[in-house]
């Protein structure tokens, strides 16, 4: 899903969204659906970024505060907060994001590897890419998108490691 830096020149669709002032992107193929924020059912004994579980067409899916999970300040809920439901391997997870921005096509050759300094032991950032930003304000025409490595965000793995 989140393999990057392969096959030069391949076009990929990514979904971009914001967390605070940063723009992030995930591979379009991993996205299952975007849904409105709905208070999930809280769970005991889970890390604070696991907001709880919600019902996705009969399946019990965890909802993760993505900003917190990545080490940023927790998202403040507002009217445009939404949940990106993604598939990570065989599992599903919902990510709370501040605002979904756009779907853009990028060239995988343009993805730069993330400089893996000072980031925590396993980086969830798979790479950086610059995209044209569709805004009314023409002055900010380009912006940097942090591409997420969904596998690194896998809940099970992270939690199992914590428990170990």
């Amino acid at each position, binding site marked *: 899903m989140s393999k990057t830096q392969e096959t030069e020149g391949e076009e990929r669709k990514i979904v971009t969204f914001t967390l605070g002032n940063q723009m992030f992107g995930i591979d379009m193929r991993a996205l299952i659906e975007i849904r409105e924020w709905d208070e999930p059912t*809280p769970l005991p004994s889970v890390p604070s970024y696991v907001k709880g579980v919600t019902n996705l067409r*009969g399946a019990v899916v965890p909802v993760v505060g993505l900003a917190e999970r990545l080490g940023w300040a927790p998202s403040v809920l507002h009217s445009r907060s939404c949940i990106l439901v993604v598939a990570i391997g065989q599992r599903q997870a919902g990510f709370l994001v501040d605002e979904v921005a756009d779907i853009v096509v990028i060239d995988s050759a343009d993805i730069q590897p993330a400089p893996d300094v000072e980031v925590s032991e396993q980086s969830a950032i798979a790479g950086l890419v610059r995209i044209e930003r569709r805004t009314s304000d023409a002055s900010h025409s380009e912006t940097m998108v942090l591409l997420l490595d969904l596998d690194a965000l896998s809940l099970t793995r992270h939690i199992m490691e914590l428990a170990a």
Partner: protein
Amino acid sequence: MSDELDEIQAIFFEECTEGLTIAEEGLSAMAAGDVSADVIAGVFRAVHSIKGGSGAFGHGALQAFSHRFENVLDEVRAGHIPPTADVTRIMLGAFDLLSDHVAAAQSGSAFPDDAAMLEQLDAILASKGAAIEDSIPAPVAEADEFGFTPVAAVVEDFDSFGFEPVMVDLDDLAPAEPAGWTVRFGPSRGAMANGAEPMLVIRELEDMGGQVMGVDISRLPGLRDLDPEDGYLIWTIVLPATVDEQAIRDCFDFVAPDSLIEIGRAELSAVAPVADATMPIAMPVIEEVERPALTLVADNIAPAVEKAKADVPGQTIRVDLGKLDQLLNLVGELVIRGSILSDRLSPTDQERVELPELSRLTRQIQDNVMSLRAQPIRQAFSRVPRMLRDLMAETGKQVSLETTGEMTEVDKGVIEKIGDPLTHMIRNAVDHGIESPEERIAAGKPAEGTIRLSAEQKGARIVVRIADDGRGINRERVRAKAVERGIIAADAQLSDEDIDSLICAPGFSTAETISNISGRGVGMDVVRSNVEALGGRLEIHSVPGEGTTFSMALPLTLAILDGMIVRLGKQRYVLPLTNVIETVQPAPGQVQATSPTSEVIELRGNYLPVRRVGEMFGLSDHRKPEESLVIIVESEAAGHVGLMVDTIDNRREVVIKSLEDNLHPIRGLGGATVLGDGSIALILDIDALVVATGFKSALKGMAA
């Protein structure tokens, strides 16, 4: 095509698994002293079909081994070899090796070394007298003395009329020997379409010393009409007389039933009119689905037992478990949608006859689907005997196994998941529990230890017990080890039960030497977490010097739960109804604090501990006890405990959704369910909740 073949292969391996199960049951019965003809024949048939199938799929090593094994079984069946304990023991060993062979063939890995076992089998055959010598298939080399040479078929013309099969006069070639066998074999039109490979059958016959003497191509049409997947040829194969007729017939076990198969004694004078000497019976025989019908002219030696081989085909079908799971999920959805619908309707509409009818039907469907998934727990137990034999060989200990209640039916999902815990516990029992024979005799016990494996249904739970009569848990050593490992404080006051349960603590192992059986210090820890993840409990009961009993109490199903829906703040939780004893509306003063963090409720003169579930889940709203309800629940470990909740919503059957599917199991929760309005309620695991002595710390880090 290869996909189809893979599919057929998969069926073959499934049948192998079934065959192995039957064989093992039979052999175990024989070991236990039941050597009736039925039992022996059952084992023989199972091994025989594995052999037949393996030949058809080209698993040479498996076929060769099962063939030798079958020879011995055949002799035992015929009464030439008495099924003594020694013979049975060797056959059990051979069975284990056969399982390994099947596994190797299935995974494509290296074949197990069977030389030693083959020697043992041959030794049995040899030592039990010359009377059996005849039935051993002649080695291939013997064929030479008959002087057969392959003769190419002379194809004179392709016209389908007037063609005479080319035959060889045996007078010159096989002088003064008893008449050999002549086999005519014509694969049916559909045989190759069904994946049969005539070449393999002929190869098999050649391995027994057979020679292809001719090919009848009279049915071969012109090139224009030729369907390459059709069967037009009839081979004539001659085999030496020393070959057992049964062995020849076995080669055709997996040939489509409408194929032409004629087996007859070759006439010394004239071989050509073979068709006259034999009766062709090229017709499908419905009763004998697995075998082609055979008519034998030379001598009618078909043993009566062979008739029994044509198992009456039961009215069963194989269904992919995934499809069944899908069906169960859909029914679960149906139940949920039904209650959503019901919630939307006005109370008067809810009472109308259609809705109760609908939910009754839905319930029936659900029950039926559940019963489809119910399987006897024997499936989980069946791997134990083999494991014990391996363990006995490794440890030199003697252990006998007693099983009861193996027909108890549980959900397939439960059976699948108790396998690993069961394995660990049996290993532990043999490695740590049962003493060496010398130790046992010194302690005044029989040299052979006993492990009792039992299953029984208790309400909505199944209790699986593994009891050994070994040395029991050495509590002093366990305690010392736990202190040494820093699991408990040196001055901790622990009851015997507490000490026993320490063996389930992570990283605990008292084994003096780390054997390759157990003693890596993960076993019991893993067992407990596995059992709890299933919504079950693990209990240990040990009497020093007399043995240890592990009891697993598991839910009968992992899919549906009868629950009481309770409210805490804005959240709803499900309490399994099986745990609920009564609910109490506390009067002022009935709930009293015994410490700043603990409370008791006075109930008919008894004081029971009370836990505020809201606090445990970080939802503390400091309600007064009088405004709450106390639900008295029964927990296996802590007895009766009161759980304080805000209100009770209702009682309903809920579909259990596992948290593991997308997250991971959480201690204290048995899963989650989707309620009628589409929201999620967490299912409480009462035992894990009330037992967790450090539940405050276990539950901290709660999502706000």
